[in-house]
């Protein structure tokens, strides 16, 4: 008699599949969707070229333990080209990343996350015409190199500085 959740409360739109399907995927759409629906791997796009693995680790760890990060590379230059894959140990952690990290800033750029069917060798290379990330046709200027320290450490520093007069070692 207790019944399940109401449709209104079951809404979890940030976790839903997007329209994107990997054209190079080996298998049909149904298979790809099946994998996407239980995947623990996220594609992360619109990263700054200067964003480091460490920064990605720090941000994405906020939704759970990270199993692996694979940086996206320009196919020709083999340098960072603005995307990466983040794999979690659990699906629930990946879902929280979709709910709370997608659409927020990393290195002062709004990043975009989407489900990925699972990393396979070769998928770390950009498929854009010049070898970089495929971008929507919107002009985005490259930002200046971001603040090199990690957010969390910066904050602890500021707090620590201002607590000099109070004899306490913070964090």
């Amino acid at each position, binding site marked *: *008699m*207790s*019944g399940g*959740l*109401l*449709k*209104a*409360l079951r*809404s*979890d*739109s*940030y*976790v839903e599949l997007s329209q994107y399907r990997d054209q190079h995927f080996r298998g049909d759409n149904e298979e790809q969707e099946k994998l996407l629906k239980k995947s623990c791997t996220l594609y992360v796009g619109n990263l700054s070229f200067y964003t*480091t*693995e*460490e920064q990605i*680790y*720090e*941000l994405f760890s*906020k*939704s759970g*333990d990270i199993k692996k*990060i*694979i*940086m996206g590379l320009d196919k020709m230059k083999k340098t960072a080209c603005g995307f990466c894959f983040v794999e979690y140990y659990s699906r629930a952690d990946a879902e*929280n990343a979709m*709910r*709370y*990290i997608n659409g*927020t*800033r*990393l290195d*002062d750029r709004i990043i975009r996350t989407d489900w990925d069917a699972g990393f396979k060798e070769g998928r770390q290379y950009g498929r854009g015409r010049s070898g970089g990330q495929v971008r929507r046709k919107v002009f985005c200027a490259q930002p200046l190199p971001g*603040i090199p*320290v*990690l*957010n*969390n*450490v*910066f*904050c*602890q*520093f*500021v*707090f*620590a*500085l*201002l*607590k*000099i*007069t*109070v*004899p*306490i*070692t*913070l*964090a």
Partner: protein
Amino acid sequence: MSRRRHSDENDGGQPHKRRKTSDANETEDHLESLICKVGEKSACSLESNLEGLAGVLEADLPNYKSKILRLLCTVARLLPEKLTIYTTLVGLLNARNYNFGGEFVEAMIRQLKESLKSNNFNEAVYLVRFLSDLVNCHVIAAPSMVAMFENFVSVTQEEDVPQVRRDWYVYAFLSSLPWVGKELYEKKDAEMDRIFASTESYLKRRQKTHVPMLQVWTAEKPHPQEEYLDCLWAQIQKLKKDRWQERHILRPYLAFDSILCEALQHNLPPFTPPPHTEDSVYPMPRVIFRMFDYTDDPEGPVMPGSHSVERFVIEENLHCIIKSHWKERKTCAAQLVSYPGKNKIPLNYHIVEVIFAELFQLPAPPHIDVMYTTLLIELCKLQPGSLPQVLAQATEMLYMRLDTMNTTCVDRFINWFSHHLSNFQFRWSWEDWLSYHQRILDFVPPTFSALCPANPTCIYKYGDESSNSLPGHSVALCLAVAFKSKATNDEIFSILKDVPNPNQDDDDDEGFSFNPLKIEVFVQTLLHLAAKSFSHSFSALAKFHEVFKTLAESDEGKLHVLRVMFEVWRNHPQMIAVLVDKMIRTQIVDCAAVANWIFSSELSRDFTRLFVWEILHSTIRKMNKHVLKIQKELEEAKEKLARQHKRRSDDDDRSSDRKDGALEEQIERLQEKVESAQSEQKNLFLVIFQRFIMILTEHLVRCETDGTSVLTPWYKNCIERLQQIFLQHHQTIHQYMVTLENLLFTAELDPHILAVFQQFCALQA
């Protein structure tokens, strides 16, 4: 939504008579949608929408009664922020159809019993509140509600039950009174006075040992951090003194008084609280988080006082909104800012306070920490002219009171603030802060430069000229060359064979006993070469896993690997954390080694730093997940065997005997694995608690002999870290209570330390 529109959709005919079964689902979905949406922004008034919906539901009762009953019970349970809207709806339905009203009340009682039996106590509170508001809608007779509350409060007389059980029944009673206190007092004041007297005497005699463990601040100023029942009692007392005048709650049923007072009421059946069982798990006590009062917003509407019932109702509703919409950050933000009655209260202040209350809640926030960061960002986007200022004000207030804030909460504050700032280009009134910074830098001695975070670089001891004289230097160089030319594990082993063991006069013939020098040169050189990125370091660990495992075979070996890794990466806390994580996952070190390392003298300088505790808690979590995983595998194997047995008794298959054998063996192996994992888990906690007791005792004894005060900042940090272990892993630790009590937290222990254990016990006592 009007009656007219509905009949337009159906061409005036009876919709359900013409519909086929396949459309029934559509209708049910439609009904669900209508019910869920009532009360949202609409062109029509709430009253007219309610009246219209009541008409629709009444018309659908013949064919969809059980679905409608189920829907209304569900919204009662899951949408408590819209309580009075739905009680009004039920009131209108009861006025039109007495039998339906009766069936609904019965269904609610059944649901309440189920919730209590399945430990869904938070939902049960909403059901009780719903029932009590039904008194206001003339669905339930007041005397029968009073009788139910009498039975609730009589639970306080039960003996040999946990206090948290008695607490819940008192809470369910008190927290319904803002809605129904007036009506109940008007009808049955003598009985209500008796119930109040019982409640008061219970509240006076109940234990509050748990309070210090759950307070966000240890200071009582500017706002006392009250135990939740104490606070609620004060609020209800004040409401009673004000003759139950309450002006905040939205009461749509008042507009329908003439209809509703004609309705026949139902009596609640006598309700006996389900007895306490071994499996009963009651909600933990809470401390109410308060950071604002009316002086913080002198320009706007007055903020209701901490003991006003309005404050209670507003906070309850805001918490319920977050609970309903936590997965949808934009919806959640929109629902929060459109809280009804928002023009009469400083809504932004309430919202910010409620969000921080959840973020800082002990033992743990109701939802994942990062949700609150993103929710606050959405709120700033939605109300850019007003909310950011309130948030800035709150941040400064929190900052000013850091020295009395619980260490765990400080961690969460730091993580929230830094993440928040990184979304706003680190814009802050830094000029105010930095000018102060410059002043400080001007007069502060250079020794304070230690507070600046170091450049996160790798420290390689064999790197420069001066290291020529270090033992093992030549081997380090040799290793470096080998690594660069893609040596195999065997080649590395043979290079290491020649490293003398400083611990022994002559080398062991077995060759691989604990040799700290071997570990030193290997780990230093490898980590230095792999320093470029996390991925490089992980690859290195993977490639030379065999060497690591062999060198770290003994407990001392494991500890030394961690020590050397720390020497290399002490400037880069994040790298330390990910390396420890990898080493545990690849079983180079075990959890107990990490625990021992954290309490070792090498780490004493960094003992109060956040990264140390993040590593320890992450380690404990990995251990817990490991145990749960194997337990699950065992359960699944047992279920598989049970299914096979059932099939065998159904068929008559000889071959399944053989299948059984393999499965039974697997179960035996898993059983052993579970036992060994649980033993490792228990040992981990014992190690951690033991080490805490040791260092705290050392400090306490030293203070006693020196005659100095125990309460140093280091002590506050350490004792709160001990509390944090209990709080963050309370469910797991609960299994080991008896061992802890008998082995470690005995009566001989210093009372300062024992108090923490007693507070923890009080959480579920």
